[in-house]
């Protein structure tokens, strides 16, 4: 055992050196017209060796370290408690959620403009993650191209406003419905696929949409994107300093208050909040409706579900369509918030981040997904100085989650329908 550990530790240390030295130590330097290779500085060499020693020691005493870490959860006083009865839990959950929503309503009036802006982005991700949660968490269909529907929503609004002068409120339902239509269209060919195959096809679909937007320069402006997307108005009141469109009034003049750039930001935040709350509530209801039960049934045992007369086509398509619908919602808000969109905003990384939010939060769990959306969006902003290491930290966090809490931050606890005992 000891020799085995020693060999393994030595091997890990050597791998560390082999990987770390070329990446950190060797630099390409321009020497006139040619490129030369520069060796590592002593400082780098020392840190690489130090890292190798740390890896070696950790692997050598790995068993001891892991067992002592395994005792850690006992420090958490809540870990051994009995699960709450369902009725109590549902009640508490709705109280907590109401509290959060009320807090979120008044919060923007006391903080800086930057924070409100960031919070709007968080809410957009909440919408996206809740929508993807339907597809991945509830229906069990791994969708790696979810960002495509987000793009459809955003571009629908951008194009409609550019060519036909549509306002935010007119474009919002159209964007969502068009995204849903795309979900339906993608759904048909991929219905027979499952697991890995489905993931690959959806991944391809996401790329098709992005590349189409990138190359169809005549309509979408290609990589230059579309700018000048209007902000939402409140009953025809604009939030700019001067009114842009004929017939509109401006918010600050109507209410006789001084113009402030913050009004606009807060208004957008509130719209995003309302839409996110609607998304959460609608999906919450869907989960308890026959369609929600059908998603779960098909995920658990497709053959049994079909033998009971459930059409695989209808059930899977409904999940795809509803998930895409909310991505369209989020896309429209995003376009309006940014005022400018380009295919850059809809790369695969976005899909991966949204999926990561769902997995981190706990598949199928709404509260968990919301928490994860907040964490994944805000943490990188707080740690701007470490932005070089963002992907490293992100990857490490994913690995650690999979080791210690593979079920996610707050795993889904199904809300069961209870049969009351008849007297």
């Amino acid at each position, binding site marked *: 055992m000891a020799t085995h550990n020693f060999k393994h530790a030595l091997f890990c240390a050597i791998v560390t050196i082999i990987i770390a030295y070329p990446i950190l130590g060797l630099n390409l330097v321009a020497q006139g017209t040619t490129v030369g290779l520069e060796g590592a500085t002593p400082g780098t060499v020392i840190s690489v060796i130090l890292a190798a020693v740390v890896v070696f020691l950790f692997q050598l005493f790995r068993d001891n370290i892991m067992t002592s870490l395994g005792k850690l959860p006992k420090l958490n006083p809540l870990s051994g408690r009995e699960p709450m009865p369902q009725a109590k839990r549902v009640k508490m959950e709705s109280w907590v959620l109401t509290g959060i929503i009320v807090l979120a309503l008044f919060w923007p009036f006391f903080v800086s403009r930057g924070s409100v802006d960031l919070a709007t982005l968080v809410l957009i991700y909440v919408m996206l993650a809740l929508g993807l949660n339907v597809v991945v968490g509830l229906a069990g269909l791994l969708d790696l191209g979810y960002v495509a529907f987000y793009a459809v929503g955003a571009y629908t609004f951008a194009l409609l406003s550019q060519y036909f002068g549509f306002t935010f409120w007119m474009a919002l339902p159209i964007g969502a419905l068009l995204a849903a239509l795309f979900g339906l269209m993608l759904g048909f060919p991929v219905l027979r696929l499952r697991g890995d195959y489905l993931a690959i096809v959806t991944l391809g679909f996401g790329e098709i949409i992005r590349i189409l937007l990138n190359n169809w320069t005549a309509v979408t402006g290609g990589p230059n994107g579309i700018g000048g997307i209007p902000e939402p108005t409140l009953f025809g009141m604009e939030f700019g300093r001067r009114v842009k469109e004929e017939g509109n009034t401006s918010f600050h003049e109507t209410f006789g208050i001084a113009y402030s750039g913050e009004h606009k930001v807060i208004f957008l935040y509130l719209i995003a909040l309302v839409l996110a709350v609607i998304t959460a509530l609608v999906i919450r209801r869907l989960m308890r409706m026959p369609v929600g039960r*059908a998603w779960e049934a098909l995920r658990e045992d497709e*053959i049994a579900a079909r*033998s009971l007369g459930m059409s695989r086509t209808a059930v899977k398509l409904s999940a795809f369509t509803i998930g895409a619908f909310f991505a369209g919602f989020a896309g429209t808000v995003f376009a309006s918030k940014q005022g400018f969109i380009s295919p850059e905003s809809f790369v695969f990384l976005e899909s991966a981040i949204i999926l990561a939010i769902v997995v981190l939060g706990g598949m199928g769990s709404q509260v968990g997904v919301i928490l994860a959306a907040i964490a994944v969006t805000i943490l990188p902003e707080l740690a701007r100085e470490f932005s070089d290491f963002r992907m490293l930290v992100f990857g490490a966090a994913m690995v650690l989650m999979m080791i210690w809490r593979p079920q996610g931050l707050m795993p889904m606890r199904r809300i069961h329908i209870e*049969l009351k005992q008849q007297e």
Partner: protein
Amino acid sequence: MLEVQNLSMRFGGLLAVDGVNLDVQEREIVSVIGPNGAGKTTVFNCLSGFYTPTGGKILFEGKEVQGKPDYKISRLGMVRTFQHVRLFNQMTVVENLLVAQHRHLNTNLLAGLIKTPNYREREKKSLDRAAYWLNRVGLLDLANRDAGNLAYGQQRRLEIARCMVTEPKLLMLDEPAAGLNPAETKDLNQLIVSLKEDYNVSVLLIEHDMSLVMDISDRITVINQGRPLASGTPAEVRQNDDVIKAYLGEA
């Protein structure tokens, strides 16, 4: 109500089912028996639409149904259970029965979102129906348990209840007594007979347990190596020389 003519199913070079004929009348219990690997479950899979038969006709209430997708066949009123119980394990017992009633529910999304009175009423009805059937198969006390935590015999009964809430005309049971002890088999026996007597359901049964088959069947069809061997009343089948040979081996 069910008539199977010359059914055959070929997997590559293997002819798993070859020229099987079957018929089930209203309110009748028909059993399909045969040694292991005789092709009984393959016949079932063809009937329930999991396989598309390579030859022959399946008529259900006079209409050809061979080659139709499984969910459409089940909607016509032919519902089956499985040799290895297939429940939705993470759902509770009562939810298993609600899932099965999705067709009787108002599936209009908007109606559900705003909880129209019609939607509530249907939801309540389906809960009542679920409660009724749970009571019928003796699982009412366990209604809010996870289906995966039930004992095996209870899972069997739940699977039958799950079929019954879809209001089938023909119930197809694939080895319902497998893994049950004699007392449970006896209960099952009574349950199947009462389904026929009280709910006008025809039953097509695959079974190894001869006591069950001989007790409750109106007619029996014997299949051996994919081919029909004999059919008739239990008494006739018991006397049949070919059947005795197939089961006991040649003397």
